Each structure stands twice: as structure tokens, then as C-alpha cells.
């Protein structure tokens, strides 16, 4: 990073956070702190929803994934527009009219307090695990690339997030998300244009795209079906739709975005904006990765992008031989590009073989940042770094804010302090926000032992989302199901997902479908033996 890059990074962060705090300066009630007084316009919510979902690892890892494996990952989002329509039709008007602070508060109105509490606790566990990972995951990448100690990166991001989230509440979170999303898109476009601009003069944009196609990197749509294949049209449309329904309809970190809307119409517009904009955005991210791949056909990349892993490879007895084979394969690939597709693909296969033989761990998370730090001009590196910080902070701030909201509304206020003043709950909200922020920093600090836990965290999400979705499907669409049936159905849904996990090798995306359908089926069956009882007026 050069001086100009640091200036761009610092100025971007200061401006974004300062703007967010300025917009939240009149926060003085719990409703303003947690729901922005229900006054947000659609465009602020829309970009906040998008920024919350696009974490730093999405930014870093997705481009790397396209480099290594192509654009298939895009299909995971194909079901998102359908999910947004369904949420706009049902959850948005129901939550608005119920005047709830959290999605789980509605479950007590529909079922009972134990269902609400069960789902709230599941959310706190799931999001709590995710908060540490969201902070740590980009830190390890920045550590490897820049040599910054990971505690420094997590501390800087964590302190900034705790500062503006605690002081400004959801208004600060939403308006900083708004700015951060703009920065992210500018950084991404800058990286893409630079990759294209840096190609040799004799390589046109169309040549570059054709080359990516020959190498199989433009495999955006896969129409063959397989249960175990994560990314194809069918798993994307169906499994992806269920995942999006669960995430945007039942996860408080997203639900709280559109609960701040000044009207049902504004909340719907924010979701439908994402229905339309998310797919092109993901296409852009993945296409950038594909163009970085083509760039590295003409400019030789390192054998392994992870500097630490590369050092280990260099200490192998056969290091020189591996490097020589790699150099030869890279030269052969460059010579064959645009002339002999068969020779090109053979050389690509040789490159993949040599890389696999190094025994190095997966380095896809380091590809994009290696390109950025080595080839982007001064200033743009700082902008892309600002984008990555922005992506991380937008996700973490939404998580911390939603964790605090559920802690205060669904647990503290509901069970421990039912009749306190609004000022009491406002200060409790600030305290819980700070506590969850500090927790996220500490959880990230244990990141070294999180290595395998990152995968475990993803599995936890997949395990629980389906059941959460099933609970809300019962709540919205199956009036005959009562509280006890719903509670037991949620547990049955979890049991079904665990059973499928240990007996059937299917993609994680399908767990959401399994969980949701199991809960609905169990709820319907149980409703015949556990009659619905009248719901009492909730305490909140």
C-alpha cells in the first residue's frame, strides 16, 4: 500500500462513518435506535440489505472462486427474486401491521412465548457464531497479503463498528451501509476495468472473454441436475429460493433492515430492488474473477497465491522441479491461447496438476488481493481495500445490531424487565450492542482455532435456516397449527436435517428445503393431535 492508498482508505472510512453518525444524531427513543423510527426510505434500505449480505469474504472469495472454478456460483442466487416476491407479499405487510421489532416477536403473537424464545435463541447462537467469523475471515486474508497482524485488523474493524453501531443504532448502520455499498461497487468496477486495461494491447476484450470461455470459466448456467452438485439451475432456483426465504424472511439481521421502512410500499421496494440488482452484481463479481484469470494467462502468477504456503513449497526437495514444470506449462498455455484450444486446455490441466502436487491448501481467497496489490495503480488499491473494509463492516454492524435487538426485545424485555421505561430499554440496547460488538472482536481473536470452525459455522447456518423458515411458513399460511404443534414441529425439522446430513450426501442448499418441509409436514400432522389454543396478548 502506498501513501495515496492509505489516504484513500482512511478518508473513505472516516467519511462513511462520520456520515452515518451525522444521520443518526437525533436518536433518542428505542424505536428510533432499533427501527429508525420506522422512517427509512426504500433506497437506503435497499442498499443496506445488499451490503449486509455482501461480506468481505463474498468480495474476496467469490472472485477467487471464479478464477479457479468459473461462474457457476451465480446460480445460487437465481431463487432470490422469487423469494423477494414471496416476502413482499407476506412477511412485509404482516410484520409492519404487527408493529414488531423482531421477526420472532411476531411468533409469540401467532403461537406462544416458548416458540418465540426457542427461535430467538437459535438466532442468537447462529448469528453469534457468524459475527466472529465475519470479522476474522477477512482479517486472515489481509494478514497474509500485507503482513498486518490479524488482531490489528480485527481490532480496527471491530472498534469502528462498535463505535458507530452503539452510538448511532440502526440509522447509523443503514446510512453507513448505503455509502459502503457505493464504495464496494466503485472498487469492484475499478478492479474489473483495470484487469481488462492491463491485458496486452493485442488482446481485445472479446478475445479475453473467449479465452475465459475456452478455459471453462464462463460456465454461468449448468442445466444438468445432481443432488450433490451445489451449483446448477435447479438447486439454485429451488434450494436458493428456500435459502433466500430463510435468510431475508426469517433472519433478524436482514428483517430489521426492512422493518425500518416508513411504509409497506417502501419496504417492498427495497426488497424488489434487490430482486433485480443482486444477480447482475454477483455476475459482475464473478466476471471480474474470470477476467483476472485471463490476465494471469498473459502475466505469470505465482505458483501458489498464499505467500505462507508458497514459502512452504519453496522448502520442498522438489521445489525447483515443480516451479520449472509450472513455468513450462504457463508458457505453453500462453503460446496456445487463441490458436490451439486443445493445447491450451492441456497446458491448463498441467498447471492444475502441478499446483495440486505442491500440497498447498486452497488459495482461492488470496488470488484477487494478490492481483489488486501487485497491479492496481496507486489510489485504486486503497479504494479496493476500502471496499473490503466496507463489506466487512456493513455485515458485522448489521449482525451486532440485530443480535442486540433480539437480546433486548425477545429475551431481556420479554423475560426480565417487562415494565421498564423506554429510556431504560434504549440504554439496554446500547449496552447490548457494545457487548455483542466486543464479543465479536474476542470471538475473532480466537480465529486461529476457528479454521475448521468456519466450515462448521456454515453448516450451523444450513442446519437451522430451514426450520426457522418452516416455523414462519406455519405462522403465515397454516392457521390450524397451534403453539405446541409448531414448537414440536421445529424440533422435528431439526431432527430431519440432522438425519439427512448423516445419511444422504446432498448439497447444503437442500438442507433448507428439507428443514422447511419437515417442519410444515410435522406441524400439519401434529395439529390433529395437539389442538390450537387461543393466543394470549403478548407482554411486549
Amino acid at each position, binding site marked *: 500500500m502506498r501513501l495515496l492508498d492509505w489516504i484513500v482508505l482512511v478518508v473513505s472510512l472516516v467519511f462513511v462513518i462520520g456520515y452515518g453518525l451525522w444521520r443518526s444524531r437525533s436518536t433518542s427513543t428505542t424505536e428510533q435506535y432499533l427501527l429508525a423510527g420506522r422512517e427509512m426510505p426504500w433506497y437506503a434500505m435497499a442498499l443496506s440489505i445488499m451490503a449486509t449480505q455482501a461480506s468481505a469474504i463474498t468480495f474476496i472469495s467469490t472472485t477467487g472462486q471464479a478464477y479457479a472454478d468459473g461462474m457457476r456460483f*451465480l446460480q445460487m442466487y437465481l431463487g432470490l427474486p422469487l423469494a423477494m416476491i414471496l416476502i413482499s407479499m407476506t412477511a412485509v405487510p404482516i410484520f409492519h401491521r404487527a408493529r414488531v421489532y423482531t421477526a420472532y416477536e411476531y411468533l409469540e403473537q401467532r403461537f406462544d412465548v416458548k416458540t418465540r424464545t426457542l427461535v430467538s435463541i437459535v438466532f442468537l447462537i447462529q448469528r453469534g457464531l457468524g459475527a466472529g467469523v465475519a470479522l476474522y475471515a477477512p482479517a486472515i486474508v489481509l494478514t497474509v497479503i500485507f503482513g498486518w497482524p490479524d488482531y490489528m485488523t480485527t481490532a480496527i474493524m471491530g472498534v469502528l463498528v462498535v463505535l458507530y453501531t452503539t452510538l448511532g443504532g440502526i440509522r447509523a448502520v443503514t446510512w453507513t451501509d448505503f455509502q459502503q455499498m457505493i464504495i464496494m461497487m466503485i472498487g469492484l468496477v475499478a478492479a474489473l476495468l483495470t484487469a481488462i486495461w492491463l491485458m496486452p494491447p493485442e488482446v481485445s476484450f472479446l478475445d479475453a472473454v473467449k479465452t475465459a470461455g475456452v478455459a471453462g470459466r464462463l460456465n454461468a448456467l449448468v442445466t444438468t441436475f445432481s443432488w450433490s452438485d451445489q451449483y446448477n439451475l435447479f438447486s439454485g432456483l429451488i434450494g436458493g429460493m428456500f435459502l433466500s426465504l430463510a435468510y431475508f424472511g426469517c433472519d433478524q439481521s436482514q428483517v430489521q433492515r426492512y422493518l425500518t421502512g416508513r411504509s409497506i410500499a417502501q419496504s417492498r421496494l427495497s426488497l424488489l430492488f434487490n430482486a433485480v440488482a443482486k444477480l447482475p452484481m454477483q455476475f459482475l463479481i464473478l466476471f471480474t474473477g474470470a477476467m483476472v484469470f485471463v490476465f494471469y494467462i498473459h502475466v505469470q502468477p505465482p505458483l501458489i497465491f498464499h505467500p505462507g504456503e508458497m514459502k512452504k513449497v519453496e522448502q520442498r526437495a522438489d521445489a525447483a522441479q515443480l516451479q520449472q514444470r509450472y513455468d513450462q506449462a504457463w508458457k505453453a498455455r500462453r503460446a496456445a491461447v487463441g490458436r490451439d484450444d486443445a493445447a491450451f486446455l492441456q497446458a491448463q490441466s498441467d498447471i492444475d496438476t502441478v499446483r495440486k502436487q505442491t500440497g498447498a491448501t486452497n488459495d482461492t481467497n488470496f488470488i484477487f488481493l494478490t492481483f489488486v496489490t501487485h497491479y492496481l495503480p496507486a489510489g485504486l488499491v486503497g479504494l479496493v481495500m476500502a471496499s473490503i473494509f466496507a463489506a466487512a463492516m456493513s455485515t458485522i454492524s448489521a449482525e451486532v445490531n440485530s443480535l442486540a435487538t433480539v437480546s433486548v426485545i425477545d429475551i431481556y424485555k420479554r423475560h426480565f424487565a417487562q415494565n421498564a421505561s423506554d429510556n431504560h430499554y434504549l440504554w439496554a440496547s446500547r449496552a447490548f450492542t457494545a457487548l455483542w460488538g466486543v464479543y465479536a472482536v474476542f470471538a475473532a481473536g480466537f480465529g486461529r482455532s476457528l479454521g475448521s470452525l468456519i466450515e462448521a459455522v456454515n453448516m450451523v447456518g444450513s442446519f437451522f435456516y430451514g426450520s426457522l423458515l418452516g416455523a414462519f411458513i406455519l405462522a403465515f399460511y397454516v392457521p390450524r397449527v397451534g403453539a405446541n404443534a409448531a414448537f414440536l414441529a421445529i424440533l422435528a425439522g431439526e431432527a430431519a436435517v440432522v438425519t439427512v446430513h448423516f445419511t444422504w450426501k446432498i448439497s447444503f442448499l437442500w438442507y433448507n428445503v428439507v428443514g422447511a418441509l419437515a417442519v410444515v409436514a410435522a406441524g400439519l400432522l401434529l395439529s390433529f393431535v395437539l389442538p390450537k389454543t387461543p393466543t394470549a*396478548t403478548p407482554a411486549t
Partner: protein
Amino acid sequence: MLNNVPDDPPPFLGSWRRIYIVVVVYLCAFIGLLALFTRSFRP
């Protein structure tokens, strides 16, 4: 207990149903373009 919060029409196209249809049509068109893109640059 649900409060009486008005359900305003969208700022364009006149009804939410029409907007949902447009989104579905958009998705179909996007998938179609993706198919064309993939097929055009397939090895």
C-alpha cells in the same frame, strides 16, 4: 393483533401484482441471457 397499516400501491405500474410479474419475467430473461452467454462461450 394487527394494526391497520395502509397498503399503498407502488409508484409505477399501478399494482404490486404487476410488479411481481415484471420481476418474474426479468428472472426468466436473465436466465435466458445466462444460457446464451454460457452457450456462446462454451469450450
